[in-house]
């Protein structure tokens, strides 16, 4: 029964990382190809898994592997995928591969590619991939926790070594904050173990919380949920996120937003809600409240940001709010929407961070006012891609971002029986207004960055914020100029190696095109993903719906 496939998915990147340790003198020139091969093979295995998955029984765990791990404690090495985890495994393999394409294609010598300590970077990313894929494959509570924690270390180094100016503080904040969350989660997992005597996620979700009293379930849900909420991140536990994203290197931001945040939400779908249904029911109104506060709060914070990477980071808080709102409804529709929004956010925000990284390389900074606008004139393709990604992120129907958020709102329109409907209707309305605010900050960002007269950029980065209503008409502009740049914006020559400033590089186009295509595919045919997640979601919610 192809049980080797999940192991291979973990073994290949692990092997790649270990070989780097064994053979320390890999030629610098061979490193890009090395990373591409190992992540490429992993991606091919992921694609094989997608191809051979039995879609007729998406609710069943497939490619299952169940071996004793630490028999004395009853820990098992239990791996497998179903319709909930399959898209995330594939997304992880894809994004990691694309990161290696971005880093290594064409020799890896362009800025923002494998430049500084390349061997360590390849090693870190491969270890990171092991942890991320393992989290989505694990079907044992402690195994899940182990993989969940493994991810933190390479990400810490990724931010701390290859990050921007404030990397030290950001990486420290990241690891302390998330470790603290993990400790609370571990306590919750141990509580479940103590009460039921098993760590097997499949068995636990099949029994739908039998053997645990209501109060234990609530306690365990709050503990596990708090740990997952830090990773998601849920308002108000997100403050590690903007700093980490702003300082992380491009690939770090992409994987952080594209995969790491998904680990938190995946935990809700895989563990917290199915294993502890009564706890989920009791905590759902609170979860929903934090979710909608996050949506509106994230959007408002974005409205006043000047840094592009920080803006995208805060937009993640808002988008994850929609995911959490979907979970909080405890209905198949809402959870489906949450899982869809999860994958869509991984694709769209991954693309956005790729673009933000490319912009940072070209302009020397991600500060929007000092870019001077007119990107559609100076770099039309980059500007067009940014427009596309922003439109996808604001939830336009026909692109992937819409369906998940729409279904999350629809779930809130009719929450599960036993949840206060009036409260959830309020959440729905607030979430809807949050969607308008989301659209507002994205189009205003586009207006600032991509629109404007290119002539003023040539004049030393001065801003095209000349007063327009100079005919005595009061200023009713939707887009207000931010404060002028504090220092004189000297547009640093983007290329250090004396090449001309190009619009979009080959390796960038290669890394981004698959994301663009998938955003279109899932947007135009949402049934692809929804038919995959619906059966397992109905099984997982068994006791609730």
């Amino acid at each position, binding site marked *: 029964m192809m049980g080797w496939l999940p192991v291979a998915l973990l073994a290949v990147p692990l092997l790649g990382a270990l070989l780097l340790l064994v053979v320390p003198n890999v030629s610098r020139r061979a490193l890009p190809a090395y990373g591409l091969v190992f992540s490429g093979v992993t991606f091919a295995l992921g694609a094989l898994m997608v191809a051979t998955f039995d879609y007729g029984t998406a609710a069943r765990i497939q490619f299952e592997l169940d071996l004793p791990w630490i028999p004395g404690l009853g820990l098992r090495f239990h791996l497998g995928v179903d319709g909930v985890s399959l898209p995330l495994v594939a997304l992880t393999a894809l994004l990691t591969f694309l990161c290696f394409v971005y880093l290594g294609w064409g020799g890896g010598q362009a800025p923002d590619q494998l430049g500084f300590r390349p061997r360590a970077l390849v090693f870190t990313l491969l270890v990171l991939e092991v942890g991320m894929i393992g989290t989505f494959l694990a079907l044992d509570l402690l195994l899940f926790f182990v993989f969940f924690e493994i991810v933190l270390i390479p990400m810490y180094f990724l931010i701390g070594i290859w990050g921007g100016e404030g990397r030290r503080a950001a990486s420290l904040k990241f690891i*302390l904050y998330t470790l603290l969350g993990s400790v609370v989660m571990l306590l919750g997992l141990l509580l479940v173990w103590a009460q039921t005597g098993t760590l097997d996620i499949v068995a636990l979700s099949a029994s739908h919380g039998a053997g645990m009293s209501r109060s234990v379930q609530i306690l365990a849900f709050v503990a596990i949920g708090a740990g997952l909420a830090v990773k998601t991140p849920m308002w108000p536990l997100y403050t590690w996120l903007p700093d980490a994203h702003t300082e992380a290197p491009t690939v770090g931001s992409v994987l952080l937003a594209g995969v790491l945040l998904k680990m938190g939400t995946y935990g809700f779908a895989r563990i917290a809600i199915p294993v502890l249904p009564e706890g989920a029911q009791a905590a759902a109104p609170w979860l929903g409240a934090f979710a909608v506060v996050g949506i509106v709060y994230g959007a408002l*914070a974005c409205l006043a940001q000047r840094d592009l990477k920080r803006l995208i980071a805060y937009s993640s808080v808002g988008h994850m709010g929609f995911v959490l709102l979907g979970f909080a409804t405890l*209905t198949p529709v809402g959870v489906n929407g949450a899982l869809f929004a999860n994958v869509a956010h991984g694709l769209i925000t991954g693309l956005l961070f790729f673009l933000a990284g490319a912009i940072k390389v070209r302009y020397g900074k991600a500060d929007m006012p000092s870019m001077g606008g007119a990107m559609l004139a100076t770099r039309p393709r980059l500007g067009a891609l940014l427009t596309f990604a922003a439109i996808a992120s604001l939830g336009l*129907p*026909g692109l992937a971002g819409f369906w998940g958020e729409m279904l999350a709102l629809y779930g809130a329109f009719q929450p599960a029986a036993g949840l206060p409907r009036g409260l959830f209707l309020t959440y729905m309305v607030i979430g809807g207004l949050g*969607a308008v605010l989301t659209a507002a900050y994205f189009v205003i960002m586009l*207006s600032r960055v991509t629109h*404007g007269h290119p002539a003023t950029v040539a004049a030393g980065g001065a801003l095209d914020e000349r007063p327009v209503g100079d005919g005595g008409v009061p200023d009713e502009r*939707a*887009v207000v100029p931010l404060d002028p740049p504090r220092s004189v914006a000297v547009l640093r020559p983007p290329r250090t190696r004396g090449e001309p400033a190009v619009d979009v590089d080959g390796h960038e186009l290669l890394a981004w095109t698959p994301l663009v295509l998938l955003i279109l595919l899932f947007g135009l045919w949402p049934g692809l993903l929804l038919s995959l997640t619906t059966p397992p979601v109905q099984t997982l919610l068994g006791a609730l719906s």
Partner: protein
Amino acid sequence: MTTFPLLAVLLPFVAAAAGLLLSRVPHRAPATVHPPDAPTGERANRRAAWIATVPTAASAVLAVLLAWGPGFAYFTGGDPTAHATGRTYGSIVTGGVPISLDLQADSLSSVLGVLVTVVALAVQVYSAGYLADDPRYPSYSAFVSLFTSAMLLVVYSGDLLVLYVGWEIMGICSYLLIGHWWEDRGNSRAAVKAFLVTRLGDVGFLFGIFVLGTAAGSFRIADVLARVPEMSAATLVTATMLLLAGVAGKSAQVPLHTWLPDAMAGPTPISALIHAATMVAAGIFVVARLFPAFAAAPPTLDVLAVMAALGMLGAALAALAQDDLKRVLAYSTVSQLAYMAGGLAAGSDRAAVFHLLTHGAFKALLFLCAGVVIHHVGSNLMSRMGGLRRELPITFVTMTIGFAALTGIPPSSGFFSKDGVLAAMESALSAGRLTDAAALLLYGCALATVAVTGAYAARAWLRTFFGRPRAVALAEPEPGTAHVVDVREGPRTMLVPVVVLAVPALLLGFAGEPHLDLGVAATAVVLTLLGAGAVYASWRLDPDADPARLLGPLRVPCERAFYVDTVYSALVVRPARALARLVVTADDKVVDGAVRGSGASARGLAGVLRLAQNGNVQLYVTGVLAGVLLIAVGAVVFT
């Protein structure tokens, strides 16, 4: 035949994708073949024009074929769903109510489909000339194709959520096209405003779909309409009120109309497309599509009537005071759409849709003519025009037809359709479906608007084509205006669509068995002539002065459209900005402050504990002894 709706939607969509992807291909070709840039750009534009026009033409043919069977059956009564052709392309599971992918054309959809494709085709052909030397023409024409495709999806969709998809894609297309000349920040802002105002309404629209879909257990329009009689009054009123928010946004009705006049920042053909066939028509279309649900919710109709009454008169007065020719036409669109909304509120969806059709024809005509005028003069402002009837004879004749239809002078199409709407409003006075006050307000405002419409149309006509030509220095055109050409009339690609559109603008009224209410018709014509006559008299006295001075002290408020923008700025925009700043401050000081504070306090606590760990053995031993003593005392006391 059953696949025609799908094909009609897909063809422009494919054209859009092809236009966006292929437009850059020649730039990659070896530069040795075409050394200079300019011919390559011209070639790319010409190819983009073909890519855009041919699929739209094919869609138009399909739409006409679809409409051929039912013809004007929609207006002659009978069951509108009787002639539905189309099919289902499966459904999408959601875990709850599924989304079914139905595309069908019944008698209402097929009539609208013809309007959309014909106007879109005219706009595509016209744009090929209007933007011939615009380097971004390929992406522009691709977005127009996408716009057409989205509107056709709205028209042919058999499922509310699929309809919503097209509805929203139109919003983003309008954003991209209004901001086509994004070098100017003003255009960029207009695009942002159009997108956000309509998006605000769309949230309500989506919730309305939720309410209807949940109550009916299906998002299919046919199922929803079939279950309307079983739904409670509260459900219906909630659903229709929420839908009305989206309709007000898209169809530019009070209070969400403010984006439309600003949308004039886009190229003129886009104004024609948005104002005549797509976008604004979508709102009226959706109410007509779901009319049984609206008819069963009288409070919603009352609200719609009041909105329409205020909107039609206010917008007409605003149109009378504008100096920008396109803004006159924009406010006129708001006013005419309010007529249709009023017709719907009065209970006659057929009259409203008929007016939508004729308005589509004559408003597209008016905008395209205005484009020729602006192209010629190099300015949007009527104070720089005058005496153009000698220089632009063809445009003069066609635009005169357009204005005649707008004011409702027989035998133009507008005369018949407006008569139908007015007759419906008059009968609503006694029918009792609306409350008396709303019905009276609606009819009164409609009659007043007829007179004001005559006045502003006469003013625009006189100031553009008559009087002394005003010599203006032809400066380098600003972005936002078309390039000035030195030929006498516009290029043929621009004139052909204008002339073709003049035919339905003049004659469409005779289609679909016109039935006249003579009393109402006579009143309307007299009122129109009164309004126009007043302007004419004022203009005769002093042809150089603006007849808008008739408004007296009302002129400034009218010019500023009654300060609605100012109110919104004070009530929505500025508070949102202030809130955003507050959030950023709070984020730093409170939420993250707590985190940093806990870090700092942990470090402080560690500092206190470190005092104990000073390596002094005597202190440690003292501590141990003290502990033993405490335990001993405790043991003694508690046992």
